[in-house]
């Protein structure tokens, strides 16, 4: 190593190289993110997506035996999609709540990946103003 040069520059060069290498490694190992869609945007999508919508209709079935069945509607809109889900159900899940669930569309039904159902914190930080 050349003593005369400023090692700080070497550090910078090395960190830039390391950053690039890490990002390449990441891209090859972990892949990209999950797009978050509303029921109306599902059409023609294969592959894993996160579906966000409002629970409407009746909730039937058993999340730990055969699957919980419910319908999700656009939070602001009318498109709906039936969902079948297995796994743990959050406390706040019920009709009228906004939820988020990952999975993929198969034959018109959204088949969820187990244990991905989350309710969007409705009142954790600020109550929604229904009036406005």
């Amino acid at each position, binding site marked *: *190593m050349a003593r005369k040069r*400023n*090692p700080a520059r070497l550090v910078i060069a090395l960190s830039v190289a390391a950053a690039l290498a890490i990002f390449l490694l990441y891209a090859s190992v972990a892949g990209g993110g*999950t797009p978050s869609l509303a029921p109306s945007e599902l059409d023609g999508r294969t592959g894993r997506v*996160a579906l966000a919508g409002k629970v409407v209709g009746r909730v039937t079935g058993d*999340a730990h035996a055969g699957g919980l069945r419910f319908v999700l509607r656009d939070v602001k809109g009318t498109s709906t999609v039936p969902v079948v889900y297995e796994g743990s159900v959050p406390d706040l899940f019920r009709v009228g709540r906004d939820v988020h669930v990952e999975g993929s569309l198969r034959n018109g039904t959204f088949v969820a990946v187990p244990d991905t159902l989350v309710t969007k914190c409705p009142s954790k930080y*600020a109550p929604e103003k229904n009036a406005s």
Partner: protein
Amino acid sequence: MPELGRAALVATLGLTLWALLAGAFAARTRRRRLALSAQNALLTAFGTTAVAAGVLVAAFVRDDFSFVTAANASSRDLPLRYAISAGWSSQAGSLLLWLLVLTGFSSAAVLLNRRTARDIVAWATPVLGGVGVFFAFLLVAVASPFETQAMPLDGRGLNPSLQNPYMMAHPPLLYLGFVGLTVPFAFAIGSLLARRTDERWIVTTRRWTLVAWTALGIGQLVGAKWAYEEVGWGGYFAWDPVENAALMPWLAATAYLHSVMIQEKRAMLKIWNVLLVIFAFSLSLFGTFLTRSGILSSIHSFTQSSIGPWFLGFICLVVLGSLALVFARLPLLRARTKLESLVSREATFLYNNLLLVALTLTILWGVAYPILTEAVRGEAVTLGRPYYDFFLRIFGLPLLLLMGIGPLVAWRRASVRSLLLTFAWPLGAAVGVGLILLALGAGSSIPGLIAYSFSAFVLGTIALEFVRGTRARRSLAGGSWPRAFSDLVARNRRRYGGYVVHAAIVLLAIGVAGSSAYDTVSEGRLARGQTLAAGDYRLTYRALEERPAANATEVRAVLDVRRGADELGSVEAGKNAYTAERQVSNEVGIRSDLVTGEDLFVIAEQVNPDGSVYFRVFVKPLVNLIWLAGLVFLLGSLIALWPDAREQRRLATRYAAAGIPARR
């Protein structure tokens, strides 16, 4: 009453505005009396904010639901302790808490330093005042906590998951941390504005940064404990944006705490340190913004939120204004010393900083990614757990290793051979632990194995440092071993406090690796009398009980626990149905083994009408080390924080020698 609160807030706005304008004018024209007046305005603002906070707390305590804030977050049968903590669960209430802590910290910082660092305080006052103006303005004009309505019969109640003792402590601790970072930021900016280029502002605010950083760290652990016990999905941290909001400033502050040592010892990294403190403070504002503006659910809800755009504007103002100031002062910030070798204490601290900042930036990117993709492509793309876990390993494991190397490398220049000699023992410990664990079957998780080997290495170096230091102290001053040990720590509080904090981080790493890399889960639907095996535990579902509590009905499944031939008593898991809030909340059952640090974690996922219950059971090895790490962390911080008369004298002589009077 609400009028009093509103009036107090308007007074606070006026006072902080005076601190900003008069303070800036006084600092620029060097008018001492006007500067004092601006500082006193800050002190008074603390009083008026306290009045406003008192009015709000009183509304919650008296169940005065004509206050909209109280009606939205409390109810008549809510226990008093939670009624008080409900005050900061609302948006406006939490902003008021921010302002209260801010004015309190500002007053203390001004009072403690205005005689010893007068020129910096003169300029820090308008900066603190400016931040105060922003929050006071929000509270007066945008999100008032004192909106009133016709008194309803009862309030809507507090979200059941927030009815937990940890949630009483978590938000105030985080806010102490967020707001605490304002003080080093204000003094850094004050120092730049005053054209001082020495590290006085760092010395002055060292304890402030430590207090803020400790509160932020402990606050996050308390939050993790809350998530573990109350949210009850079997984990304690999920890379949720709300959690990342607190983690990012903590990481940036950690980098800052380390890099200022380089500036103190070697007068290097001046620009870097100023940038880091700006970064940390901006992240603490960004954290408040993330959790309070509604931007997380979607950009659309953000633009509808009342405080969101204001917050974004203020953050931009802070970042751009600070950077412009740093740019203008660049000629003053040039370092006179340079990095001499890539193997030196300075260099390892630099690597530590690069890794911490890289980790912070990747988390920031992950948090911002859905917001950016929604803005650009109209479709939010979220980066999940794999993204964060990947970068935590890539940056976190080298950080863990550096924690062992850094403190033992010589300043300026060290030879690789001397390093190998120094590290022979810890290196041996690391390899030994790695091999033993491999033989025990820990190879099922490579990152876990690496984390444990590195942990052994770091604990080895820390033990070595304590042993060596004690031995040296004893041969120097004589006396008994314990005496030499306590002398050693008392004489170098920063250094040995730092080692204790390092030990806490190692405990944390061991706990996190153990509970995430080596946990087991089993689940199943059990009728009464049936048994489920989980790890080497066997759980038998014995009974289902229902009982009324103060504001909820509790349903509990009772399970008898056995491990081998040992009867370990019983565990209860179930659900609470809250009456006023009309919500159900999961209540998990946890059996902690205090010897091995292992938890048996039982979730009653679903209680069926026929009395059968669907259980999910985790066995989490070593998870209790995480909570133990919190206590050790606190101990280490307290050691480093403890007032040190010797250090003060050292500093006084140093400033006298440098020709900068410590006291004018």
